[in-house]
């Protein structure tokens, strides 16, 4: 088993070290790091802008690059939150709590240096986990019939929508909307048109890129235009010399780093709990076991490295269900899966055996990419810090162009450009009504496969809906779904009562964490 994984890894390094692959990996992490630093641009928007550019590329290079954008953005986001107190990306909201006080004490460079190190440790652990766990999961998943796949998807969708940010019911509503949007276009089995309203351009369904760029590009720009506070660059004068931590710092950061890594990897195993939740849980745990919890928030190095290590370990771990089961845990993973599907690759447990170059190449590129990121972040910190000062008024109009041309280039069709504008407006209305649009993408990508497997399961069972609880593995998934819904209702009722009691609990309790992240991102606090 271990031997097999190691030989796979060896093969993967061969793939990832091919010159064009290593180049695409570099482009990916570079662009990712850049947008991670830029306030107001997220990895989701960036990956969707780059997506049309990958159509002409080989699948391995494409996925290596898009994956690189994703974890590269996590490195960049830490710079933004530590030096500016701006949680540009939700996973880093908690890093601000201790990162920015450190910056004010003039120790921002040390915080950044140790963050890069902790990130690398976290990511390495996540990759190792991926190497050994994915083949095991695949072995189990190959036994699944349509009924099991269906209930597993249901579990993934439910977890993705209820455990993410904001209200769980609204999350589920967004998932349902996404599933519906996935059904627009020609029905695969009968060939009849659905919800096209006579527009032949919609026969192939709604364009994934138009949906992603509308929801995470245009809607976000509408949300932040003229709302972004001017950036305070008072503390951003950081050079490479400032980054070297003292021995005492290293010693204090060592164990929190590992604890964060473990928390992150555990979180990544639960579908739907992405890096944001991992970072909050890690911070809360660290605070709980610390000997002096009252000092958290005043610039403790533990409070920086722990959530960062956890974020990175969970980001890499999130690839496990995506690549081995074909079930994405969050919207970014859904987008990467969509990218694979555009390349004509069917996601699912057969992916590793049918396309070993993609899977092992990706795993190997993670190591290479993370090493590149460490090299990019330490000596080039001055450049990244300068990028923080790019004002939003230059950023979003340029991004609008990339949105338009990207959507156009997907099919060389202007219809999709109109589609993206309509989706953007709709997405902004949803944002204002308190919906988080990420689950839409999850439902949209899984929708067609869910319908296909559901139909097949019903055909095999001769229309007996009970098949989902009669088959043991499927029954376990259904039971987990019910537990998930039950616990949400329970916490909701209990939470409503606790709200009425004045007893102020831990500032960052596990439950309030996603809420807090969302608020902080909305408010974009400036000094």
């Amino acid at each position, binding site marked *: 088993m271990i031997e097999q994984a190691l030989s796979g890894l060896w093969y993967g390094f061969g793939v990832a070290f091919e010159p064009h692959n290593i180049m695409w990996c570099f482009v990916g992490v570079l662009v990712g790091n850049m947008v991670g630093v830029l306030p107001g641009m997220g990895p989701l928007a960036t990956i969707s802008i780059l997506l049309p550019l990958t159509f002409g590329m080989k699948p391995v290079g494409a996925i290596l690059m898009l994956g690189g954008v994703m974890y590269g953005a996590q490195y960049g986001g830490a710079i933004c939150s530590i030096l500016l107190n701006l949680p540009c990306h939700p996973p880093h909201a908690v890093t601000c709590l201790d990162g920015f006080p450190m910056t004010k004490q003039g120790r921002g460079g040390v915080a950044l240096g140790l963050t890069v190190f902790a990130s690398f440790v976290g990511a390495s652990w996540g990759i190792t986990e991926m190497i050994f766990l994915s083949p095991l999961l695949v072995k189990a998943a190959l036994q699944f019939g349509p009924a099991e796949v269906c209930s597993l998807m249901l579990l993934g969708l439910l977890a993705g929508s209820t455990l993410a940010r904001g209200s769980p019911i609204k999350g589920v509503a967004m998932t349902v*909307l996404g*599933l*519906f949007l996935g059904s627009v276009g020609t029905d695969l089995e009968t060939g009849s048109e*659905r919800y096209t309203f006579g527009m032949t351009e919609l026969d192939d369904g709604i364009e994934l890129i138009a949906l992603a760029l509308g929801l995470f590009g245009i809607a976000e720009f509408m949300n932040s235009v003229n709302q972004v506070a001017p950036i305070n660059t008072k503390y951003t004068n950081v050079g490479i010399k400032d980054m070297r931590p003292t021995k005492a710092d290293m010693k204090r950061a060592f164990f929190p780093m590992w604890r964060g890594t473990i928390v992150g990897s555990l979180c990544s195993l639960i579908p739907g709990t992405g890096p944001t939740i991992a970072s909050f849980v890690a911070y809360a745990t660290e605070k709980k076991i610390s000997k002096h919890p009252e000092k958290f928030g005043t610039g403790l190095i533990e409070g920086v490295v722990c959530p960062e290590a956890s974020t990175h370990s969970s980001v890499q771990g999130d690839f496990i269900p995506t690549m081995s089961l074909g079930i994405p845990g969050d919207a970014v993973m859904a987008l990467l899966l969509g990218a694979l599907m555009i390349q004509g690759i069917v996601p699912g447990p057969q992916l590793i055996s049918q396309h070993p170059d993609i899977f092992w190449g990706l795993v190997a590129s993670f190591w290479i990419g993370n090493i590149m990121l460490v090299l990019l972040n330490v000596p080039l910190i001055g450049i990244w810090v300068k990028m923080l000062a790019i004002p939003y*008024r230059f950023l979003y109009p340029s991004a*609008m162009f990339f949105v*338009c*041309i990207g959507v156009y280039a997907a099919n060389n069709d202007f219809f999709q450009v109109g589609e*993206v504008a309509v989706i953007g407006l709709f997405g902004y209305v949803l944002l*204002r009504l308190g919906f988080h649009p990420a689950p839409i993408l999850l439902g949209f990508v899984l929708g067609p496969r869910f319908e296909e497997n559901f139909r097949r399961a019903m055909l095999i069972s001769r229309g007996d809906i009970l098949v989902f609880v009669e088959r043991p593995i499927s029954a376990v998934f259904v039971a987990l779904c019910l537990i998930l819904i039950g616990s949400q209702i329970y916490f909701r009722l209990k939470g409503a009562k606790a709200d009425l009691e004045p007893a102020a609990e831990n500032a960052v309790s596990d439950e309030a964490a996603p809420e807090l992240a969302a608020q902080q991102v909305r408010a974009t606090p400036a000094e």
Partner: protein
Amino acid sequence: MRLSTSLRELIGKRDFYAGGLMLLLGLGIALKGSSYRAGTLMHMGPGFLPTALGILLVLLGIAIAAASLAPGADEHGDDQSLLPEHPQWWAWFCILMSPIAFIFFGRYFGMAPGTFACVFIAALGDKTASWKGTVILASVVTVFGVSLFSYFLQVPMPILTWRGEF
């Protein structure tokens, strides 16, 4: 009396509109879906799943609106207003017009005018924008964008044309 106060309370809540929107969307989906063949559970037609999703969305919409009335629902810290504190109608208009301008100028005059119009109009939305700065930004993006997409990535869109006659 009590009914009218709770009704007034309901109308002031954002989630009332959020739920209402989901309800309307669900109704539309379900009604349109029922015009497609539903089939049986064993041999499902194209209308089966969308109709079911529409009905589910209606139920979720009702649940969202109802949950906003539950005690303690306000204390999530969300703002309950429909519009942000400083509504940016002009900026929103500019952002939404930007793709439209790209379509119009792109189709009839080519990629370079399309890009310029797209960036220019979007940039006007910022309240600190000046004419000069906007023109410079749009020109820079046009030069960079056209060289990247037309020369390097070979997007088949003419750079300059007249009324779409290639």
